[in-house]
């Protein structure tokens, strides 16, 4: 599959009477965006705001972060099975608006979380302090169930991102990158001497606010399968989770999956990037055994030499991670796993809830229990009401001077387990 990614760099976002992109500036009509968000009757109101890197702004509670994209050539559309009709994506031509994101916020449950600070110490940890953010805070109609509200905010974010992405359809990209993978046979013939490598991605799949969707399918209900690595660039995988925001993959991370991109960097040079294998992290133990058996089986059937396995979340997924690692290694396929750690505030506890000697090559996104003081910022988009209830926070979180004492857990994307950041630990 061959996908041409056209990058359009966004230098600024401004509200205007008409939505358009001109000279790298995204002009947004509030009215038009609101209309798109309010297409769903479950959303009562939406307020829009713009947060720029370096501003004294805190966004919370963040639900999802999405990079606007538009499919300009080839099969299907962005977010297949969710926004676009179901069709296999990952080939042709896609444009992405770089340097910006659509951020959805809204209180779905009372202990909701996810903080993006645009400045200060928190900004060093969340990757979304570096993007120009169009933030939409969605209020639901009265009496709505949490499930319905979650779905409504999720879809509203994708609709708005798609609307923004469409503005780029007729533009000329600032930069173009080509991502191309071979079929199995082609790859073997073309790169007979290169190690065959795949990416095994574990998807959060446990329940409300703990779900992920693949072409619109709830990832709990999938068995491990194979994607072309370019499919995620068109939104084949989207996020439905945000609890314990530090190590959950917002849709932005799926679209820009760093393992996919860094394996492509080496494709044809030092390795042959064969495919992207996805699996889940269900609650039911028999599901874990089946899924890990299958990932190992797929690795074997594809004659892989090595894989990178990425995790999403804590605790329950530690068991999937170790099962995957152990079984894949047992097939003679070498693994590197990416995780993050919960080593306690003092860093002295066992970092993972499972372990095995086979996991001898680990990359870590850092200790999520590390305490950080977030100073009071001038403006809050969303509400601080819930900050005190988020994972890694408590009623005592808000200190007298208005600063927050929290664990890294609360910062969106801070200890991402796809290797999105530079944070690590030893």
């Amino acid at each position, binding site marked *: 599959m061959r996908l041409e990614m056209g990058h359009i760099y966004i230098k600024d976002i401004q509200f205007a009477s008409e939505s358009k992109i001109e000279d790298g500036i995204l002009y947004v009509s509030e009215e038009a965006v609101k209309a798109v968000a309010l297409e769903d009757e479950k959303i009562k109101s939406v307020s829009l705001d713009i947060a720029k890197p370096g501003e004294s702004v805190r966004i919370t509670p963040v639900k999802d972060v999405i990079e606007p994209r538009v499919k300009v050539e080839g099969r299907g559309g962005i977010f297949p099975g969710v926004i676009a009709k179901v069709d296999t994506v990952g080939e042709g031509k896609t444009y992405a608006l770089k340097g910006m994101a659509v951020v959805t916020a809204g209180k779905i*449950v009372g202990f909701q979380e996810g903080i993006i600070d645009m400045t200060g110490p928190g900004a060093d940890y969340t990757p979304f302090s570096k993007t120009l953010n169009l933030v939409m805070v969605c209020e639901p109609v009265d009496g709505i169930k949490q499930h319905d509200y979650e779905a409504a905010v999720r879809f509203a974010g994708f609709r708005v991102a798609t609307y923004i992405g469409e503005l780029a359809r007729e533009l000329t990209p600032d930069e173009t990158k080509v991502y191309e993978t071979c079929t199995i046979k082609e790859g073997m013939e073309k790169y007979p001497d290169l190690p065959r490598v795949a990416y095994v991605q574990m998807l959060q799949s446990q329940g409300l606010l703990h779900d992920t969707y693949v072409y619109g399918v709830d990832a709990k209900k999938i068995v491990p399968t194979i994607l072309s690595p370019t499919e995620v660039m068109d939104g084949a995988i989207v996020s439905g989770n945000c609890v*314990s925001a530090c190590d959950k993959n917002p849709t932005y991370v799926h679209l820009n999956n760093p393992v996919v991109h860094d394996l492509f960097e080496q494709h044809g040079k030092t390795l042959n990037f064969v495919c992207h294998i996805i699996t889940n992290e269900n609650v*039911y133990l028999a599901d874990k055994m089946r899924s890990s058996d299958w990932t190992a089986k797929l690795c074997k059937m594809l004659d892989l030499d090595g894989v990178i396995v990425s995790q999403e979340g804590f605790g329950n997924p530690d068991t999937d991670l170790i099962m995957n690692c152990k079984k894949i290694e047992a097939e003679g396929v070498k693994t590197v796993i990416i995780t993050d750690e919960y080593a306690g505030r003092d860093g002295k*506890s066992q970092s993972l809830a499972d372990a095995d000697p086979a996991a001898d090559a680990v990359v870590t996104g850092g200790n999520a229990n590390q305490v950080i003081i977030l100073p009071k910022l001038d403006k809050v988009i969303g509400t601080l009401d819930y900050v005190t209830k988020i994972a890694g926070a408590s*009623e005592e979180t808000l200190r007298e001077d208005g600063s927050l004492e929290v664990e890294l857990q609360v910062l969106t994307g801070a200890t991402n387990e796809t290797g999105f950041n530079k944070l690590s630990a030893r």
Partner: protein
Amino acid sequence: MNGYMIITNNPMVRDKLGETHNVVYQEISYEDILKDVRDRIHEGHTLLSHPLSGSVKPNETPYKSIMVSEKKGAVDAQGLAIIENAIQACGKFVFRSDKYKPEVYGDFQLIDLTLIESGITSADTQMWSEH
């Protein structure tokens, strides 16, 4: 009834599932639920759902529901390792389950309910030997 039972301290699980499922409800802590399940595994029950389901950590949410088999057999060594690791993990997180505003507890209960329901959905389509 279904071949499995749900050990829980979540009143919402008791109320929603109690009539159709074998629910063992006890007013004990999150950690004590894990220990109760550990004891049952020692007695020969098989662990069916992951004790650290969900991303809200032990000591952050007060609620936990776990599925074990109704039948007893040989000790489930893997389940035992998982539950022991889970109990150990409790110590890592600062206790704040009692520090939330009252309205939040219903949401914690709901999340725990959806987590265990996802396990039930799996279990009810897989009536094989483990339970």
